[in-house]
Each structure stands twice: as C-alpha cells, then as structure tokens.
C-alpha cells in the first residue's frame, strides 16, 4: 500500500496480551469452524446419499405424492445453511463486535 500509516504497534501488543481478547479469538474460531464443518458435513452427507443410496432420495414424499423426498431435503439443506449464516452474522454483529470494541477501548493507552 502506498499510503500506509504506521500500524498501531503498541495498541496491537496490548490487545494481544489482553486475556479477554484471547478468549474472544478462541470463542469465535470455535464457533466459525464448527459451523463450517456442520455445513460441509451436511452437504457431503447429502451428496454421499445421492451417490450410494439414490433410492432413498427417490421415495415419495408421502403416499401417492409425485414429489420425492429429495426435493424438500435439498431445499432444507439450503435453507438451514442460510439460517446458520443468519445466526452467525447476528451473533458476530452483536456479541462479538461489542466484546471486541470494549477490548479495543480498554487496551488504548
């Protein structure tokens, strides 16, 4: 970057050494990795069933229906993945951001 200001080195150091920052970083990373693994596991499970037991997705939704079980399942996969993003964004924008702002303020010289 050609117009880079000196990074606030001291401020960074104090934040880094703040135990609340360490807790925040840990909590956030635990949550984001869990959610990612959940979504990817759901997706690969779905793909796995489609590859190995396609007949399961092909069952009628209910007796006499012309919709198959796979259609609501695929839709649910998308809707649930989206709701999980909604939940994460809400949590990060309220809880984590508040925490982080207070840590930043607390660590100012």
């Amino acid at each position, binding site marked *: 970057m050609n117009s880079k*200001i000196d990074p606030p080195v001291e401020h960074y150091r104090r934040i880094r050494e703040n135990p609340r920052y360490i807790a925040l970083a840990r909590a956030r990373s635990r949550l984001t990795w869990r959610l990612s693994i959940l979504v990817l596991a759901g997706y690969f499970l779905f793909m796995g069933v489609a590859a190995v037991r396609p007949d399961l997705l092909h069952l009628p939704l209910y007796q006499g229906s012309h919709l198959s079980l796979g259609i609501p399942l695929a839709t649910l996969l*998308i809707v649930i993945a989206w709701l999980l993003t909604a939940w994460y964004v809400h949590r990060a924008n309220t809880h984590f951001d508040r925490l982080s702002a207070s840590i930043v303020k607390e660590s100012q010289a």
Partner: protein
Amino acid sequence: MKSTGLRLIAAALFSQPLFASAADSPAQGLNLHAIGMFLLFVSITLLITWWAARQTRSASDFYTAGGGISGWQNGLAIAGDYMSASTLLGLSSMVFAKGYDGFIYMTGFFIGWPILTFLMAERLRNLGRYTFADIVSFRLDQRRIRMLAACGSLTVVCCYLLLQMVGAGQLVKLLFGLDYTLAVMVVGLLMLVYVLFGGMLATTWVQISKAVLLLVGGTLLMLLALAPFGFSLETLANRAVQSHADGWSIMGPGSMLANPLNVASMALGLVFGLAGLPHILMRFFTVPNAREARKSVFYASGFIGYFFLVVCVLGFAAIVIVGTDPQYFVDGKLGGPLLGGSNMVAMHLAKAVGGNLFLGFLCAVAFATILAVVAGLTLAGASAISHDLYATVIKRGTASEAQEMRVSRIAVVILGLLAMALGILFEQVNIAFLVGLTFGIAASANFPVLFMAMYWKGLTTRGAIYGGLTGLFSALALVILSPTVWVTVLGHPQAIFPYDHPALFSMPLTFAVIVLVSRLDRSTRAGQDREGFDDQLVRAQTGVGIATASNH
C-alpha cells in the same frame, strides 16, 4: 451422457456459451421488445454512471466506491456478480432435461456461501483495502507476493471475461437478432463507459439494478408459470412426471452421479473457487467495516439461494408447459432439439406464459446481466494491474494516487479492448475448458494462498510463492490433459487426465507445497513473515487500523 450433463451445467452456470446448436439455426429476426427494454436499461445505467462519475475522485472511490456501500446494497451486488445470465438459462435447462439432478448441482453452487461467511468475510474486510493481494502481502514480502497474486487474478479475470464475451455475443445474436461481432462490441463499449467513468460506484449500482431485475423477473416468471397448476407444487410434480419421457425417475438422482470423482472435483472447485474469484473478493472492500461485510454475504446468500430455488421450479414447470408444446421444438418434433438450442428453456417458458413482451423483458435482463458481470471483472483485473503490479512492483510504493488512477484507467481500456478482440476471435472455438480452468485456478492458486495467509502463522513468502505457482501450473496442466481440451479441442482420441475439473487434485497439492516449503524455509524473511502474524490476527479480529469509509 454423464459428462455431457456435467459440462452442460458447469458451462451453463458460468456463462459458457452452450448455444452450439445456435450456429445451425438461423438468427431470429430483430426482437424489438427486447431491444426496447434493453435500451431503457442502458439509459438508466448511463445515468447512474454519470452520477457516479461526479463522485469518483480518489483511488479509493474508483476501486471500492469509497467503502461507503451498505451491507444490504453490497449483498445485492454480490448476488448480482454470482448470478450470471446463464444461471437462469443453464440451471432451468438442466432441470428441464434431467429433473432432480439439477437440484443436486444447485446445492453445490450454493454451499460455498455459508463457508465464505463463516471463515472469510470479516477477515477479508479487516485486512484488505483494494485487492485480495493486500491481505496476502499483509505480513509477507510485498513485491513477490503481489506479483504472484496479480498473475492469479489476471488469469482468472481473463478466462472469465473471455467466457462472458463469447457467451454474450452468442446470446445476443440469438435473442436480439443482432450480429455477433456487433453484440460483442456493444457489450465491450458499454462496459468501458461504466468502469472508466463511474469506477466501482457505477459498477456496483449497475450490478444492483441488474440483480433486482433478475430477481423480479425470475419471481414473476415463476408465478406466471405456477398459475396453471393452481400454485400447487404437487399438481406441478404430478403433471411433470406424466409429461417427461423419463417419468418418475426425474424426481430422483440420475445419471450424473455415475462419475462421482468428477462431480466431487467440480464441487470442490466451485465451493472453494468462489473464495478465489477476484471480482467477488473485491466486493468485500466496498463496505465500511466487517459488520457490513458479514451482513452483505448474508443477504447475498439469501438472494442466491432463493433465486436458485425459483429457477428449479421454472425447470419443472417448463417440463409441462414447454416440453409438451411442439411450437418450441425444431420442426415441431416433441422431445427433439429445442428451438434456439438446449439452453433456451427459460426463454420459451417466458414466451409461453407471458407473451412476447415478457420474453423481451427477460432477454433484456439476460443481456444486462452479462454487461454487469463483465464490468465487475474488468475492474478487478484493472486493480490488479494498477494497484498490485504498477504501484507496488514497478514503482515500489512511490506512485502517487493520481498516477495509480491513470494506470488503472489505461488498464481498463486495454482489458476492454482485449476482451472484445478475443471475444470476436474465439467465436467459433469451443471454450468449454475455460470453466474448469477459471475455477480450477481460483480454487488451487488464489484460494489456498489467501486462506493460509489468513489462518496459518507458519506461512512464509517462499511457501506462498511456490504453492501459488504449483496451483497455477498444476491446474493449467490438468485442464490441458482433460477431456475438454485434449479430446474436444486438440482432437486426441483419449484424455490423459480423465476429469474435466482439476481442483480435487491440484488444490490439495498446493496446500501440501505451501506447508512443506514454509516449514523448510529458514531465511530471515521467513522469520519476519511468521512474526507478523500476531499483529495481523489482532487486526483481523478487531479491525483496528482499517481504512475508513469516505463520505458520499
């Protein structure tokens, strides 16, 4: 069959022109409704550009709209970047032809978004400024890293631009009855006007307008198409099963999973390639802070998921409405080739349920979509040239903002002219391989380097360079040896590498090289690289020190 299906969908969703049969069918006469609506769209976007040009003063305005776009607006713009004209056309055609298989593909195209939200969104915004190279070079050696990142960005941008240009030319020829060369020139020149004068602000608003049009158009079409079924999905499914030649089997997984490794490789490339597309990544720098960045991916994934589901319904409705009406088939033969090529399903459906006026509207939306995507791509390419190559690598950070802006405008013109020239040159070439290549390189070169720079303390400059180059060249080599190039383009009888998409192999290879080289790196630079991580992490987590938004 299976690989045709694969190529059909991959191609279709990412704007590969699948109008092979269009070449055989004569161009339709001038479509006046479509041209009228398109001109209306163009005048509105030119007004937007004029307004944006008056606000675009600094480099930050030009690259990132001054960072003043709200999460909601940016969400629409991101969705617009991802929903290409061919999502509407290609995905609906996939469902029309194969039923449930289209659904399965659609989930793969969606699932990258939540991952992007969880793992990348806030770090992208907190660490980046104009290009994703800002993030990778945050603690690594600026010059070498930016050179690598610019190579990755420009390769992806050029491949994607070429795909879009050829797709645009063929689509417009078919829909509007205009000449191919003329169509490519119109797209190229309009895009130049948007980007050159309006920068990111105009590009974003063009993208937003197009996203709204696409969402509204798709929803309207779905409602019109569901009306004959009394808005009952059960009735629709019943009639679709009766109408389709494959009957009940369209409701379950079909032939596409016969080659699961190819599907896995493609899914991997799409999920992680998404996080390596420079024009998508650039969108994260247009919002003021991480909070808005998160919101924007949330809105974007909502719009994208919704739109994908709508398009799937369109596909099923088309099975009944278009699939049983001889007027949409060549020589009126039901079950034979569709008029205008296999990708025209959504357009025929529009005509069937909404008449010529609605068809014209949808054609105009499709054209607008291509235009907007091309503008975003060019801007991403130009910023890699001016911000990464010119300002850091050539001028070593001494270029003034005015100089950098001038270079980026020159880069826009060069990229625009190049896109037009290549678009015209490649009219008759089968460029399906570019889909695999674009996403292969994005997933194998850009994504691993970016991801490791954000998450792994041990990453060193040398590791990033070797890894990035490995990804670039292995993806390139595997695509050349794949069926789409080795057999289709070069005419050999048997492909050396049996899959169309390289990501399953090239991406893990890149990660392995990055880790191995970084671990063995004992240089002094490597020490600095590792040391810088802790400060980078503080900034990634808290956003302390990020560039703030200028006021508009």
